[in-house]
C-alpha cells in the first residue's frame, strides 16, 4: 500500500521529482568529475614515470635493491620466466642487466650506467623512441648508444670508439672497446648525462658473466591490479627473490601522489559540503511545498508513522534513481576527457614537454570512482530524509492546511 502510494506520488508531481532527481544526479556527476580528474592526473604521473624507467614491477635477488652489486644478480635459467609470463595481467617480462663503469674517450672520462636491452623483447622500441641520431647497435657487433650530454661531455660522436673500464662479475676486471652507433635523448638531463645502452648479450660478454641479469622488469595490462599481480608473482618464484612494485621502487613518486591525494581530499570535502547543501535546499523546498498535503493526510486519519514511511520510500526510490542517472551521465564525460585530455597551455608547457612529461590532464575512467561517489551521494541523500521526517513529526494538521 505505502509502496504503491509512494510510487504514485513520485509520478504525480513530475516537476518536483524531476528537480530532486536532477539535484542528486548532478551531485553524483560533479563528484565523479572531480575525482576522475584527480585520479587521472595521478595515473598520468605514474604512467610517464614507470614507462620511462623502472617498470611497474621488478624482480631481483633478495638484497640487490639495497646493494646493487653484480654478485647480487640472478641467472636467467634459474628463473621461472615462462610461468610469470603466463600469469594474468602481464604484458611483458623483460630481463635487464645494469652496472656502473668508467667510460673514457681521449682524456675525458666519466662514470656511466650501462643498461642492457633484450633484442627479442619490446624494449628496443622504447630505446628507439629516444634515439635522436644514428641507429641501434647491430646484433653481434660491439656497439653502444649513449645519452647526448654524455657524448658531449666526452667530446665523442657517432663512429668513435669508447673505452669501458670497471669491475666484472665476481671480482674480475671488465674492459672493452665499443663503437658509438647512436645518441639518445631521454628528455631528462640526469639520464642524458649518465646512461649508455647496449644489448644484453654484449653486456654479459663485457662483464664475463653468461646468463647474468640483475632484474626482471614486468609490464602490466591493468596498473590498478598492481598488488594483486605482485602477490601472484611472489607465489610463483622462490623466496630468494624480491618482488618490488613501483611504489617501493620509486618512493618519491608515491609520496608525490599522496600529496596530491591529500589535497584532493580537502577539495572533495568542500565540494561535498556544497553538494549536501544544494541537496538539502531541494529537500527543504519540496517538504515545505508538501506540508499542506501531509496535513490533509493526517486530518483524514493517516498515522504519522505511515506518513514517515511514505516519505522514506519516496526518498529511497528517487535517490537510487538519481544516483543511477548521475553515474550514467558522468561516464561518457569522463570517457571523453580520458580520450581528449585537458591540455596545459602557457609558457611552461614547453618546459614540461622537455622534462619528458606530456602537458595534459587526462580523466580517469576507473569504474570504482563512479561507484564510490555514487554511494556517498546516496548516503547523503538518505540522511537528508531526516528533515522531512522531523517536519512530519511536528506537523499540526490544522495549521498545515491553512494556506
Amino acid at each position: 500500500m505505502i509502496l504503491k502510494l509512494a510510487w504514485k506520488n513520485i509520478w504525480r508531481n513530475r516537476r518536483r521529482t524531476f528537480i530532486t532527481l536532477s539535484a542528486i544526479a548532478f551531485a553524483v556527476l560533479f563528484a565523479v568529475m572531480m575525482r576522475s580528474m584527480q585520479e587521472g592526473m595521478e595515473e598520468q604521473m605514474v604512467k610517464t614515470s614507470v614507462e620511462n624507467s623502472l617498470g611497474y614491477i621488478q624482480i631481483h635477488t633478495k638484497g640487490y635493491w639495497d646493494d646493487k652489486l653484480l654478485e647480487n644478480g640472478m641467472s636467467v635459467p634459474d628463473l621461472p620466466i615462462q610461468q610469470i609470463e603466463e600469469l594474468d595481467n602481464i604484458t611483458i617480462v623483460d630481463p635487464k642487466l645494469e652496472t656502473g663503469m668508467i667510460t673514457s674517450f681521449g682524456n675525458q672520462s666519466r662514470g656511466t650506467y650501462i643498461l642492457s636491452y633484450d633484442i627479442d623483447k619490446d624494449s628496443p622500441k622504447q630505446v628507439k623512441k629516444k634515439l635522436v641520431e644514428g641507429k641501434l647497435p647491430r646484433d653481434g657487433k660491439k656497439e653502444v648508444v649513449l645519452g647526448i650530454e654524455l657524448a658531449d661531455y666526452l667530446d665523442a660522436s657517432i663512429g668513435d670508439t669508447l673505452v669501458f673500464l670497471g669491475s666484472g662479475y665476481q671480482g674480475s676486471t671488465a674492459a672493452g672497446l665499443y663503437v658509438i652507433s647512436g645518441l639518445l635523448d631521454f628528455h631528462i638531463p640526469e639520464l642524458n648525462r649518465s646512461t649508455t645502452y647496449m644489448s644484453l648479450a654484449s653486456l654479459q660478454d663485457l662483464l664475463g658473466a653468461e646468463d647474468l641479469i640483475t632484474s626482471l622488469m614486468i609490464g602490466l595490462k591493468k596498473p590498478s591490479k598492481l598488488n594483486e599481480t605482485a602477490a601472484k608473482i611472489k607465489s610463483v618464484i622462490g623466496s630468494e627473490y624480491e618482488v618490488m612494485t613501483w611504489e617501493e621502487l620509486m618512493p618519491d613518486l608515491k609520496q608525490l601522489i599522496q600529496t596530491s591525494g591529500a589535497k584532493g581530499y580537502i577539495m572533495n570535502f568542500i565540494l561535498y559540503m556544497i553538494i549536501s547543501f544544494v541537496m538539502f535546499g531541494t529537500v527543504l523546498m519540496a517538504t515545505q511545498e508538501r506540508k499542506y498535503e501531509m496535513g490533509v493526510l493526517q486530518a483524514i486519519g493517516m498515522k504519522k508513522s505511515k506518513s514517515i514511511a511514505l516519505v522514506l520510500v519516496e526518498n529511497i526510490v528517487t535517490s537510487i534513481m538519481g544516483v543511477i542517472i548521475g553515474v550514467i551521465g558522468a561516464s561518457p564525460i569522463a570517457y571523453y576527457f580520458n580520450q581528449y585530455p585537458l591540455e596545459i597551455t602557457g609558457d611552461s608547457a614547453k618546459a614540461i614537454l622537455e622534462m619528458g612529461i606530456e602537458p595534459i590532464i587526462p580523466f580517469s575512467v576507473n569504474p570504482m570512482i563512479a561507484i564510490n561517489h555514487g554511494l556517498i551521494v546516496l548516503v547523503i541523500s538518505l540522511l537528508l530524509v531526516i528533515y522531512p521526517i522531523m517536519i512530519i513529526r511536528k506537523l499540526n494538521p490544522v495549521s498545515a492546511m491553512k494556506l
Partner: protein
Amino acid sequence: MKTILKIAWRNVWRNKLRSGVVFTSIVLGIWAGLFVVAISAGMLEQQKRGTLESQLSHLQIHSNDFLEDIKLSHKFSNTQVKQIENVLSTHSDVANYTKRSISEGTGTTPHGFSNLKVIGIYPEQEKNVTTIHSRLIEGTYFTKYKNKPILIGRKLADNLHLEVGKTINISFQDKDKNFIQAGFKIEGIFGTPSQSFDVSNVFIKASDFTELIGSDSPYTHEYAVNLNDVETSSDFSTTINSQFTNATAENWATLSPELSFNDETAGTSLMVILVIIIFALTFGIVNTMLMAVLERKRELGMMLCVGMNKQKIFIMIMIETVCLSIAAAPIGLLLSWLTIAYFGSVGISLESVGDALYKAGYDSMVYPAVDSIIYLNITLMIVFASLIASIIPARKALKYNPAEAVRAV
C-alpha cells in the same frame, strides 16, 4: 521601477526559509571557492619556499659558457668577479649572496658509484643564502674535520652505504685536465625535499676545491643570490643581464621548470575544480528559484491578471536574486577572510600523510593564503553565476498564462 524594487524586497523577506537557502548557497559558494584557492596556493607556496631555501635561492648567475657546458674552465674572469660582486654588494634589492665553485665528478665506494656535482662553498656565506646547514640529519657543518670534509645527501648515503666519518673517493679533472682522485671525509648528511638533489650534489670547502684543482686563486662558477623580495627576481635578472654580456642571471622559475610545472598543473586543475563548484552552486540556485517561481504560480498569475506586464515580473525575480547576492557577498567574504586568516596562522594539519608530504617537499601543515585580488575575482564570479542562475526561473515565469496560473493550487 521603485515599486518593483519594493515588491522584490518584500518578497525576499516574505519567505525567509527560501531566501535563506539561496542566501546560504551564495555564502557557501564564495567561501568554498576562496578556501579551495587558498589551500592550493598555500601548498604551492610552501613547496616553492622549501625548494628555494634548500637548493635554488632566488636567482643564480653563471657565465654563458658554463650554462652551455659545465666545465671547470668556464669560470668567471677576475674582472667579471669584481664587477658582479660590485653590483651585488651595492644593489639595494639584494639581501645576501654567495659564490660557488662547481665541477662534475664521480664519487666511488666499494658499493658503487654516482655522478656528482661537486660544489665548493664558503660555509659562512652559504649559510645566509641556503638552509643546507639547518637540514643536516646527521653530523656537523664544516666544524669537525680539518682535512677535506664533505657534506652529502641522504639518498646518496643510502645508495653508496655511507655514514658520517666514512670516506668517499671523488674523481674529477684539475685545471690542466688531468684526472685526479681524492678521498673526502663525510662530515654531515643533509636531507632536502628533493631526492634527486640529494643524490647528485655534494658540498666541499671552496679552499679544498681550489687546492685540488691545482690553482692558486679560487675558480668561481656560480653566484647564488637572495633578494629582499622574491617577486622581484625576474626584474633583477633582467637588470643583471643588461649589464653583463658574458654572464646570465636566471631566476628560480627558469632554474627549476618542475616548480613552474606544478604551478601550471595546479592552476589548470584548480580552474576545473572552481568550475565544478560554481556549476554545483548555480544548479542549487536554479533549483531553489525554480521551485520558488513554480510555487508562486498563483500569485504571479494574479499579478499578471491585475495588469503587471511580463517584463516587470522578469525584472522582479532578477532583483530578488540580486538583493540576495548583494546581501550574501559581504558575509561570504567575511567568513572566507576569517577562516583563511585563522587557518593561515594555525595551519591545517595533513598529519595522516604528513611524513610523506614532508619528504615530497611539503610540510605536513598547510597554511592557506590568498591574494586580495582573488577575493574580488571569486566574489564577482559567484555573484555573476547566481545572476545567470536566476534567468532560467525568471524565464519560466514569463511563460505563464495568467488565466491558468491564477487557478493553480
